[in-house]
């Protein structure tokens, strides 16, 4: 078979890219996934949406995406509820240095029109009464951050893309990408051979392997991040509570459960998505310190998923110098879900050589060329 564009990966990024291309009138778009819709990182993510970042690029991607989410149900004509709840992110600082850094972050965020603000301990306690203020110096709060259901949101993109003629193939693992004289010829998957000159790598945790098939070296790796969810209770917490120094994010989702996660600094770089008892131990200790009341709840489930880390913890979005027609949307470093609307919009603009809504030349893969040291996004759990 033939296709104009082959998109690898039916997570939120792949679906958003497919939708944006189709909406601009592109025909013959095929999306391949080695498993099912949202089976990878999207369906395993923490479901948080925030604009409070430490780099300008991340702030802009997040802000544009939130503006899309606010209208997504109508724009995508989705019948279901995407469970978008804008009740904020409360990010707490626990050291003097962190508090100073937050001062700078908020300044940057405000300069870009993001309604984040620095707040006192007391104000933080008012927003989240069960917060342990003894351990905190201060906090920042952005009321338009929040929660979004990853399954529903991806489904909304998927259905909208399908209505516009995009073809999806599931359980279809890409095995090879054939290249001739610096041009893509075809994509070979489990059961299909698709002749195409354009491939989008939105393969999440497997983006590096897909790059290797096309002969393009992408400096990303996957690492396991774990999450747990508690039994549901009546609503007691509105915003996501997050701390980089305490290594935790925790929010109560509309259903009433608390979802929380933290990073393991010694985690191996691989495709492992197991859950461990060590995570459960450490997560329990952390949440008991930061949000003691939540410690009384029973855990109903835990799981793991991949962050795909780039050297500067910012996404790689754009074309590649090494191979004509090969496009990248990867290396989101744990935040691909919340950036997806902008990922789809901006990459489709690049692919169709349209003027960019915002300049994302800084997200091009060429930024890593001959570079050893990076200033990277620090506002990451």
């Amino acid at each position, binding site marked *: 078979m033939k296709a104009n564009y082959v998109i690898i990966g039916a997570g939120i990024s792949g679906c958003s890219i497919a939708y944006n291309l189709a909406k601009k009138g592109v025909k013959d778009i095929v999306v391949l996934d080695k498993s099912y819709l949202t089976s990878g990182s999207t369906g395993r993510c923490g479901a948080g949406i925030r604009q409070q970042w430490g780099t300008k690029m991340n702030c802009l991607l997040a802000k544009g995406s939130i503006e899309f989410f606010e209208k997504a149900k109508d724009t995508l004509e989705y019948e279901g509820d995407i469970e978008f709840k804008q009740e904020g992110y409360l990010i707490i600082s626990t050291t003097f240095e962190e508090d100073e850094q937050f001062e700078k972050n908020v300044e940057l965020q405000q300069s870009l029109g993001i309604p984040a603000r620095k707040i006192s301990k007391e104000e933080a306690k008012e927003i989240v009464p069960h917060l342990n203020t003894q351990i905190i110096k201060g906090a920042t709060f952005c009321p338009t951050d929040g929660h979004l259901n990853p399954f529903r949101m991806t489904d909304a993109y998927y259905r909208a893309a399908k209505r516009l003629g995009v073809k999806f193939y599931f359980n279809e693992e890409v095995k090879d990408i054939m290249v001739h004289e610096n041009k893509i010829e075809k994509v070979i998957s489990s059961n299909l051979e698709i002749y195409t000159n354009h491939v989008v790598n939105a393969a999440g945790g497997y983006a590096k392997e897909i790059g290797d098939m096309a002969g393009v070296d992408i400096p990303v790796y996957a690492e396991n991040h774990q999450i747990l969810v508690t039994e549901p209770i009546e609503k007691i917490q509105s915003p996501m509570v997050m701390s980089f120094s305490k290594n935790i994010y925790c929010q109560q989702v509309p259903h009433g459960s608390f979802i929380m996660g933290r990073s*393991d*600094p010694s*985690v191996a770089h691989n495709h492992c998505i197991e859950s*461990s*008892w*060590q995570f459960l*131990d450490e997560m329990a200790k952390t949440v008991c310190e930061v949000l003691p009341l939540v410690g009384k709840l029973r855990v109903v489930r835990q799981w793991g998923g991949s962050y795909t880390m780039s050297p500067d913890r910012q996404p790689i979005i754009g074309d590649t110098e090494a191979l004509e027609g090969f496009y990248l949307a990867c290396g989101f470093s744990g935040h691909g879900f919340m950036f997806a609307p902008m990922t789809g919009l901006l990459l489709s603009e690049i692919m169709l050589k349209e003027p960019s809504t915002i300049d994302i030349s800084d997200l091009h893969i060429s930024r890593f060329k001959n570079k050893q040291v990076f200033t990277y996004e620090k506002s990451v759990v």
Partner: protein
Amino acid sequence: MSKYSLIKVKYMIKKDLVIIGGGPAGLCAAKMVAEANQSCMLIDRNQILGGQLIKQTHMFFGSEKQYAKTRGIDIAEKLVEDVKKYSDLIDIWEDTTVVGLYQDKVVTVLKNERYVKIQAKAIIIATGASEKVLAFENNDLPGIYGAGAVQTLMNVYGVKPGHKIVMVGSGNIGLIVSYQLMQAGVNVLSIIEASPKIGGYKVHASKVRRLGVNIETSCTIKKAIGHENVKKIETIKLDENWKEIEGTEKEYEVDAVCIAVGLTPLTNLLSMIGCQMKYVSELGGLVPIINENHETSIENIYVCGDASGIEEASSAIVEGYLAGLHACKKLGKFHPKNDELMNEYHQQLTNLRNGPFGEKIRIGLKKQGVCKDVS
């Protein structure tokens, strides 16, 4: 190794072998292991060992080797007695719920409200089954029970579940529980069965029919009616394609409904640790892929009894013996009569699965990847 493991290991109980589930399969595995002079920990979430046997007051069929002509409750007593003889080798943790099973073979449990971790070298999973449920309107009204719950109420606690009851399902459990309900003085209005023929043994069906209970085939429950508890149910006939035939609705005034539509393996722990699973409808649903040593796709993780596919308690007993023998053999402890027993038990399983009633099991086991112990 992650930095956490270094700090936490000292709070970890170490065991060579952990058996999860103290029903017939788990008890028999423990017995074999102890006979081979291998220590183990036997964990069960109930206060009394014996699994489902403790609520089975009827006599078993089949071979005397698996306690035929003995009541389930007496079999349980016998099996528990066997295990308690080895108190030096078998560490029994009753009233303890396993809440997690991790790839490094750490079993996490809740015991007396405390969270405890146990590091095992090998694990035998004998968690049994859970009852299947039916989807119909108001299926969550009080008064609607699974057959297991009815047996527990009547046979363990001596409580009648209701006065006027309809049984949904005519497998052996549906038939036996109907008979027991009648013995307890409950009015069984009807036994309904969705398939065109009765599922259980003829001898059980005849017994309830002689007492005047109608078994209506090609019929299912459509909805339950009631507010605080079930007052009425509506049944409907099914055609040869299992489609409802309009106009055949029938109402029964009831105060209880018993759903006996089969069991499904309780495989949550197997899934959690990452065993390869396969859907085999003949075995009751999602089952682990196993080799002929009852070992799953993860080395030293064994499974036996209903957790590896729904069969009779007699098969669970023999599978338990075999899983126990294989597990301790791999840990380096040979049962003094290992070879003799292995042959004997394999033969027993083959016999149990023989004949027309074993056909479904034989098909299922072939799909599951085990061709041994079926002729």
